């Protein structure tokens, strides 16, 4: 029972925090809300016997990426959003577009619900596995990563390098030499 309780708690926190992310006006608050959401998700990962992923989530997402976001928000002195006057005439504000959008949203929700109902038949082995050690040890993870997925691993490292170079290039001031 405490397990279920923890689950509801964490998932509730995650959902509420995410809703607040998109609901806040000030981007700074959005970032902080998102960090809370990540924390809740990390808890869920631990519940799913994936401690490595949970820790990685905290370190990478909450620790690195969100800090980066904070830096940018503070650097740009991001103004709070307001609907500018010239904005009102934007084609995307037209009623037709809004109706289309809401219809698509409803469709998406229906599809997701349908998918969930199909998946509802798949029960069980989230419960079934014995011993967390058997599945999710870091050793096991490392072994699979460096044998079956080694190519993707190397490719990802190249990707990070490229992203790094790209980010530096893109954020330079005009006319600056590195």
């Amino acid at each position, binding site marked *: 029972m405490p397990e279920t309780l923890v689950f509801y708690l964490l998932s509730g926190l995650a959902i509420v925090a995410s809703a607040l992310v998109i609901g806040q006006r000030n981007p700074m608050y959005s970032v902080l809300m998102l960090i809370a959401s990540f924390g809740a998700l990390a808890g869920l990962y631990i519940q799913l016997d994936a401690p490595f992923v949970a820790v990685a989530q905290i370190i990478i997402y909450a620790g690195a990426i969100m800090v980066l976001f904070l830096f940018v928000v503070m650097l740009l002195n991001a103004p709070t959003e307001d609907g500018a006057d010239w904005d009102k005439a*934007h*084609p*995307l504000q037209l009623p037709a577009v809004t109706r289309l*959008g809401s219809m*698509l949203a409803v*469709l*998406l929700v229906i*599809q997701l619900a349908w*998918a969930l109902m199909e998946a509802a038949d798949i029960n069980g082995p989230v419960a079934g596995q014995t011993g967390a050690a058997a599945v999710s040890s870091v050793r096991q993870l490392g072994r699979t990563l460096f044998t079956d997925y080694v190519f993707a691993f190397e490719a990802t490292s190249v990707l990070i390098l490229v992203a790094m170079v790209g980010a530096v290039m893109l954020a330079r001031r005009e006319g600056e030499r590195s």
Partner: protein
Amino acid sequence: MNRALVLIPLFPLLGFLVNVSFGRRLSKVVSGGLASAAMVASCAVAAMAVWQLSGMPVASRAIEQTVYTWISSGDLLIDLTLRVDPLSAVMILVITGIGALIHIYSTAYMHDENDSEFARYFSYLNLFAAFMLVLVLGASFPVMFVGWEGVGLCSYLLIGFWYKKKSATDAGKKAFIVNRIGDYAFILGMLLLFAQFGTLDFQQLATSISGLSPEVGAVGVLSLASLLLFVGATGKSAQIPLHVWLPDAMEGPTPVSALIHAATMVTAGVYMIGRNAVLFSHAPEALAVVAVVGALTALMAGTIGLVQNDIKRVLAYSTVSQLGYMFLAMGVGAFGAGIFHLYTHAFFKALLFLGSGAVIHALHGQQDIRHMGGLKRDLPVTYWTFLIGALAIAGVPFLSGFFSKDEILYETFHQGHVLLWVVGALTSLLTAVYMFRLVFLTFHGERAVAPAEASEETSAHHASSHEGSHSTTHLHDAPPAMAFALIVLALGSILAGYVGVPHALGGHNQLATWLAPSFEAPGAAIGAGAGAVVGEAAAGAEALELTLMAVSSLIALAGIGLAAFVWLKRRAIAQAMADAYPGLHRLLLNKYYVDELYDTAIVQPIRIGSQEALWRRFDVGVIDAAVNGTGSVVAAGADVLRRLQTGSVRAYAGSMFVGVVVVLGYYLWR
């Protein structure tokens, strides 16, 4: 010697390469001398090969060299093999010997050209010699065909040598295209033979065919192949119906006319039939066609030559006519006689052309015989050599032409083709008449001054590369290089026939004996196959031959006499006859309107068809429209579609959303 055969075509080929690469930087002495030296070297090697050949036993008289394997594809194996046997021995000596003389002659004749044009001329001439030698040395159809096509190319290049003159380039194109039509039939013939026998090597074909029975009275595969090959020969050797290119080919320089259109290239068709004697012997119906076409061509060309006024045109039609004789010989099975006439004809026809070249050179380009006359005094060497050539071609006894022409006529009569003999005799008469008309109008009588030349008398300046300015009445005879060639060829015209003196006159007809093995399948008993070329045993046959000889001598002399009477004594008669029969005169002058017939029946329809239907309707209307239309459709489509690029990022996100929903729906539905 087996490994030196390739040198025979290789020397002129190297000459070509040097002249075409460096020609413009070489002086005329070097480029001309180099080209001539290549021919002389080739002649020397050829002579050595023939010498060696003569020392070999008759049954296996062939020297062969395989240079490399050219095509090896599945069942098809074609080597580049050169083979010298008695027939090709005669040919290579003619080509290299007379070719060398003409090269030497050309160094003087073409002297007025600038250095790079001079070198270009010699490069083409050498290339021609190389290809011609490949043609006659080839041991299989494909190798011969390489030479066949190559000489056609060089003929085009040399006819159109003075390319700035439209008539010359037109003539070159005409020659090439008409040749091509013949080549098409030639290829079909080759393919047919390959399909039937699986080989294209001459000796293997001969062996395979000799085992079959002749197709008498029927047209089977052998006859069909022979006819196709013969059509190719009519193209190359200017027989009816593909003879139209040869008179126009006179646009080229005169030495070219001598070499290509008298002595060598046009004889390729005759050689080809000789080379395939076994095949043709097994197709009597095809041989009959050959004989008839040859005889008709000889007669027709002779009649046309009677009224032509350009010195080279007369000689061109004479060539067509003499080639007709050669084909007549081949057609009645007298292969050796045909080759004999080819050999003697090379001498006197080349001589006549080179002599006319000397005349043209002396008169600074005048070619109309109505504006010549009296040149006997001014150009003695040219006159005497030309006269010897004319006597030889007319068939005056004991000159070379007499022996060869007589053998053809004898064989024709002896095989029973009396009507063809009559045609041949008639043509002999015409030959004598038009030839001596040419001689008398050109060299005898008084100088008929052309209107253009009359005005030149008032100007004192003449451009001449040999001497300074001189008046029109003083002409210079052939320079040493030209005179040398003329004299050698004159000697040849007299003496060349003595290798073929028939038994009836006490000779041994060495040439026929020499050539006989080439017309049999390898390994066959000599003299067992077709052809009464070797030895006329019966005394009755000898008496017949003597009679016919006397008849042809009489015809020749009668012809000369007739020409002397009309053009030496009473020129007015010729004009009166022309006036009396204007239609006939015009018909002959316009070459029986054959060119006009081809033009209306074939050329214009093709041209109009191509222009209107193929070009306008199809190429422009369909293909171009399709390509351009694709472009404009794409452009129009893009014009519509580009409105999707609204620039609004959120709109793009919206379209992505639509995509997601669709894809998700698809997967869920499945």
